[in-house]
């Protein structure tokens, strides 16, 4: 009798049932995603705290393992070591909470959500390992430390490594000089080593060919690469200044004061 009657056969209940089933699939996905984002925040925050704790270590005050001069690393005092241990446990717990969500297809599905945290954690791992053992961990070594149940992409490793260079620069600047027994101010061994390491990284990274249109994190890479160039410049400049003027420095001079907080 009326036109609308011809379409009334579409079943409202079926639409409801269909979309309800879609809804539960979407809800499960959103819940997993939210859990990963939360864990990601916790991991990032704890990793940053580890880095800050390591930056507070005064190289000159720290007990240094002297057995191998090339590998001479820092021994952390028990307070800092304890703090870092606590933070590490937080990170392990946060990873554990999303272990199931990041399995199988989830590893890549939520990669973007966990990626930032992984990079930050890599930064903490690399920085600590360098200070303790004077060694830059490889991707494989990092994957082992994070755990094989979690995906550490090569891209995250590289970006984490580039972030670490900023921390190394800070550490080199704050620990720029030693005062010898005879009272002479000189460039510290650690500053020299970091300077050399940053140059190595600069050479290696600047030779990489990154196809900007094809690599997901290439813009980030280029940005971080520029930061690395600046860090190398800062350390080189600081080491140079101290080398030239070191012997004339007044007591109590703090390196980096003339840098206008650019560090």
């Amino acid at each position, binding site marked *: 009798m009326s036109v609308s009657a011809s379409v009334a*056969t579409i079943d409202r209940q079926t*639409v409801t049932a269909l979309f309800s089933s879609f809804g539960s699939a979407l809800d499960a996905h959103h819940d997993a995603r939210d859990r990963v984002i939360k864990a990601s925040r916790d991991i990032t925050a704890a990793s940053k705290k580890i880095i800050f704790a390591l930056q507070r270590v005064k190289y000159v005050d720290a007990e240094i393992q002297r057995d191998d001069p090339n590998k001479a690393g820092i021994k952390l005092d028990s307070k800092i070591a304890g703090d870092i241990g606590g933070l590490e446990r937080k990170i392990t717990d946060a990873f554990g909470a999303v272990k199931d969500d990041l399995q*199988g297809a989830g590893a890549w599905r939520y990669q973007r959500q966990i990626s930032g945290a992984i990079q930050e954690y890599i930064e903490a791992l690399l920085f600590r390992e360098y200070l303790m053992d004077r060694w830059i961990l490889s991707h494989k070594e990092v994957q082992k430390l994070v755990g094989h149940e979690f995906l550490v992409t090569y891209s995250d490793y590289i970006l984490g490594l580039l972030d670490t260079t900023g921390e190394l620069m800070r550490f080199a600047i704050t620990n720029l000089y030693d005062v010898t027994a005879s009272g002479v101010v000189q460039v510290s061994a650690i500053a020299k080593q970091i300077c050399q390491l940053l140059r*190595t990284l600069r*050479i290696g990274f600047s030779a990489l060919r990154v196809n900007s249109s094809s690599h997901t994190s290439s813009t980030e890479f280029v940005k971080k690469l520029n930061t690395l160039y600046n860090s190398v410049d800062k350390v080189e400049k600081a080491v140079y200044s101290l080398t030239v003027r070191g012997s004339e420095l007044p007591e109590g001079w703090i390196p980096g004061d003339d840098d206008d907080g650019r560090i």
Partner: protein
Amino acid sequence: MLLISFHHTVHAFSADMASAMDLEIFNKCQDSIDRDSEIRENIRNLTKVIDQHMRSILSILSTAHSTPSSSFPTFAARTTKSFQFQKEAIQKLASLASQHPFYKYNALWSRTLQNAAFAVLFRDWLVNEGNAYIAYHSGSSKPEERDEPTETSKENDDVRSKVGQLTSLERVCETLGVKPGLEDENTFHLTLEEYLQATISLINELSRLALNSVIMTENSNYSTPTRINYFIKQLQAGFLILNLKNDALRSRVDSIKYDVKKVEEVIYDLSLRGLIRK
């Protein structure tokens, strides 16, 4: 050439530089970038082919906007060949993509598959609509009686027949030659989000068709806009069931209300003039 120059740079490292790190890191990094670029390039080339077939299908289907509803099944049939080509191209993509974790490169073809799914939904809708139109207007004074048996016969069928003209996810996958969205599988599939996005594209397209079908209507048979109105309102109600986050799907779902409004205005105009009975 470039690869050679890179390895030369590695030779530029002095011996003491190697003490704090494994210089292989840079080679491995380059390898990883090169491999990734190559895969992306290959996937992009395949999506371009799929897009091309999708465009030729859609150009045929968009005839709907300038022909009477009764001709829908006829020209929809002309897409069969392109659908076949598209299916073959998608299968090539599927076999390449299956070599990698599914979500690693999913973003590269997601839009392509979404559009391809929309083409299926639109074609099926048009065929159904054309048949419904012909059935309804073939001199019948009692349309309910004519429509009843066809719908009842489908009732025991899959979800597709129950929702009427909305082709189910499983059926769309079948037409495209992919697996349906198996959430936890790493195999190549059409995701639920892609299917829902395609459904919204259908709603968009139909809101335009509601207007154009009025222009093209033969003998004052204005049943197509009425069916569109009913259909998209059903879907709108369906989308309201979903808990959406602030993501791409959300913003498109929000756009449905404008399509509904557009069609309602057509219905209003027609009923105001007594061209359809409510």
